[in-house]
């Protein structure tokens, strides 16, 4: 009977090994995805047992953990909650960590990130209690405040970048919400607030600068079309373009008018520079058809369309449509049809032009610091791409200066400082009102800030309002805060 007993031994070994393998699979390979499952109460509870790191703006905490008197040990507190909500997000007992850095940098804030491994080891050896690391942000509180004031209680978004580094100086969406209402340990009230906010038509929890329903860029996209033209080598900013009052679009009975119903220059002709200055639809529609959809698409791609970026929150990729016929190409060239963008993408286009053609990787976290504010890790500015040459950038700067000095963007001008910019009025899917844009940078010769501002549904001035009279003055307020 010994042979079958030995064989049975192999069966025993196989049974135990299958369990060991399955346990290894669950506890090692599957662990991360199981831990990240929504509704994993262990992770949420564990998060409250350790002191979560603070989020700092200019040395002051905008999110911090305070001892609470209940079983959860710590409670999250936000200063100026609704101003910074799109940046911080929320840390909630019921809904976990999300909506911003609380979610995207959760592992650093709880101290469980792999990059903090050695520090954790030191803490274990020295017997320090587990503690999360703090985040120092790139946000400039003055600009953030000015951006929020510029939006007021209109729906919209502002994102401002340092064109030379990619640092995000301001990230504001309106309406916003107070994350303190989600961080509360009164779970019933939190559930109620959450349900209300998610059902609200004005979507206060959506960070409009990087996500949500993307916007049609309108005439701000003419910067991309201009870049494509200049990069092709066949155009300079003094090249002559046709600029009639209306342009018959091929293959349709439809014709495209200019906003003011007039031709863009004498003899129905204009230059590239002047076409941007007055935001000439007919000139750009024709230019787009002449360049062709491939050149437009490839220029957009170079600027970052279609790429998933993380700041470290995930940025929804902006899109340029494919398989266009001629009239669709014409409409896309002026930022209509199916072109959809995030305000961050538009701000990055201005920032690239401002930075001589070098596009910097946008980032929100300047430093990861420990509780003694010693820097653990700092972000080095990185060139993300080079979508345009320095020469193209100079030409575009010149054109954008003309927009502010003589064209549609006059109201963005700041006395004593040269501003460069571009307005945009975009008819969205809802035919009721337009989204109003301004993007630009200042000072033009030594840029400190590049921004994009969008006001949904015509801001508060209804259908007739144009970007120049609504978005441009709002942008001016932000520029003033930044350069003064």
């Amino acid at each position: 009977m010994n042979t079958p007993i030995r064989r049975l031994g192999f069966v025993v070994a196989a049974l135990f090994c299958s369990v060991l393998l399955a346990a290894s699979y669950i506890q090692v390979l599957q662990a991360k995805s199981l831990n990240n499952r929504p509704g994993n109460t262990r992770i949420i509870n564990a998060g409250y047992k350790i002191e979560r790191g603070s989020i700092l703006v200019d040395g002051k905490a905008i999110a911090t953990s305070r001892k609470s008197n209940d079983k959860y040990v710590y409670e999250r507190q936000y200063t100026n909650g609704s101003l910074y909500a799109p940046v911080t997000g929320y840390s909630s007992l019921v809904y976990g960590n999300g909506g911003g850095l609380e979610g995207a940098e959760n592992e650093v804030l709880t101290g469980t990130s792999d990059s903090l491994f050695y520090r954790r080891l030191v803490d274990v050896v020295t017997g320090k209690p587990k503690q999360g690391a703090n985040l120092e942000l790139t946000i400039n509180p003055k600009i953030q405040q000015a951006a929020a004031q510029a939006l007021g209680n209109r729906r919209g978004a502002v994102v401002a970048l340092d064109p030379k580094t990619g640092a995000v100086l301001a990230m504001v969406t309106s309406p916003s919400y107070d994350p303190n209402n989600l961080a509360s340990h009164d779970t019933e009230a939190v559930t109620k607030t959450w349900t209300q906010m998610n059902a609200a038509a004005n979507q206060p929890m959506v960070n409009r600068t990087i996500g949500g329903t993307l916007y049609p860029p309108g005439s701000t996209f003419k910067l991309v079309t201009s870049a494509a033209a200049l990069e092709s080598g066949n155009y300079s900013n003094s090249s002559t373009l046709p600029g009639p009052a209306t342009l018959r679009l091929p293959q349709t009975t439809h014709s495209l008018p200019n906003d003011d119903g007039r031709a863009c220059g004498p003899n129905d002709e204009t230059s590239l520079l002047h076409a941007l200055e007055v935001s000439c639809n007919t000139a750009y529609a024709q230019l787009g058809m002449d360049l062709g959809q491939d050149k437009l698409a490839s220029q957009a791609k170079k600027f970052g369309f279609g790429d998933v970026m993380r700041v470290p929150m995930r940025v929804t990729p902006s899109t340029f449509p494919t398989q266009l016929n001629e009239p669709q190409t014409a409409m896309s060239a002026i930022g209509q049809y199916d072109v959809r963008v995030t305000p961050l993408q538009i701000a990055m286009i201005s920032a690239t032009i401002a930075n001589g053609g070098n596009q910097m990787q946008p980032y929100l976290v300047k430093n990861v610091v420990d509780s003694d504010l010693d820097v653990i890790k700092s972000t080095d500015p990185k060139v993300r791409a080079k979508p345009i040459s320095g020469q193209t950038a100079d030409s575009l700067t010149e054109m954008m200066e003309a927009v502010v000095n003589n064209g549609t963007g006059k109201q963005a001008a700041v006395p004593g400082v040269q501003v460069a910019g571009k307005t945009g009025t975009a008819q969205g899917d809802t035919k009721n009102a337009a989204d109003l844009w301004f993007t630009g940078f200042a000072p033009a010769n030594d840029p400190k800030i590049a921004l994009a501002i969008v006001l949904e549904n015509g801001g508060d001035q209804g259908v007739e309002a144009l970007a120049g009279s609504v978005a441009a003055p709002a942008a001016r307020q932000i520029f003033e805060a930044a350069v003064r």
Partner: protein
Amino acid sequence: MSLGLTRTTSGTKRGTELFLLGFAVVVVLFAYASVGLAIDGTMPADIMTLGIGLGVLALVFHLVVRIVASYADPVLLPTATLLNGLGLVMIHRIDVARGRDIMEGAALRQLMWSTIAVGAAITLLFLIRDHRKLRRYTFTFAAAGLALLMMPMLPFIGMNINGNRIWIHIGPLSFQPSEVAKILLTIFFASYLVQTRDALSLVGKRFLGFPLPRARDMGPIMFAWLMSLAVLVFEKDLGTSLLFFGLFVAMLYVATERRSWVAIGLILFFTGCYVAYLLFANFQNRVALWLDPFTPGQSDQVARSLMGLAFGGITGTGLGRGYPTFNYSEANSDFIMSSFGEEIGLAGIMAMIVLFAIIVERGLRIGIACRDGFGKLLATGLAFSVCLQCFVVLGGITRVIPLTGLTTPFLSAGGSSLLANWAIIALLLRISDQARRPSVAETDPTRGSDDTQVVKVR
């Protein structure tokens, strides 16, 4: 017997056992201290009491083994002690998490049952001085085993817990009779198969080059199969059913050395499972939960246990620092291993699974070394029953197979399980004592009449 497996040991090895026992007690005390330190930040006040209690219990058992089974296997007792002790610590830890104090907690009851179980095992060692005498009661054991197995189906005393009717209830005591039935039936199988193995293994025709047994020899396996099906159908207990049938097929194979029995057994088993799956919603739910533990609207028991295991990761949260109570009320019974997985991590449960493997491996070794056929089969059967039980419950937690309710040997809170598993240890110790006793005993004319001395060695 010339394979060097049985004569590698010389002497009684009682010193080894004592040393390992001391080690086991120390590990348990460390675990206990670690729970206290994690939860209150203080050394538990009663750690000395526990240490002395556990130490005395182990020492008494050790001394008994010295006296009545001095050549017994030296690893079994320490391994079982370690597992039992760790189980106690986890049950205590879950009591603390639930805010129960020591008097009303499950840990004290478990400690009491551990003492009773160890006492019972000691008594067994005293009572059964020669395991072969068990053969005299072959059919008594069979009858008792079957009766116990069927008891939960009776009205009044049978109890339905979580859809499984595997408990009996008399007064304040609830008892899982299948645990004890497991041992009685193993003794019966061993005894019966030793008698009939020649007929079962030698007679028969070949079919497609495969030796098939005669129809009338199919009787026993069909009977075992029907019994398992009855347990499955009437008690809704897939685990126990699988355990009994698997055990019977394994012992049949060992007794007859014919693989055809395994094939027949597997076919019957899977047929039974498939039919049960078609007929009972209970099984369909379990299978659905096995394939996707996160199915909305279903029990999230497995899902929570998986998240606990993942939360523990490789090294675990540390005892007292996880959330094992999130695994519902089974955190200290069916799911006790996921509580361990959460708090001592993959590294910890790997070590614990290896402890189970050691018990099974020692059991099989005892089977190989044993000189009589009955002892061989009994040791093999007992060892394999521990293995199957571990596989059914641990495989259920780790999603190798659908989850079925069975207790984890030595760990789960519950008296019947402890009693049964300590009895298995006592029986294995008894058989191993006989197996390892120097060969002088073989020439002893009073023992030499065994017809099972014929052992095939290849």
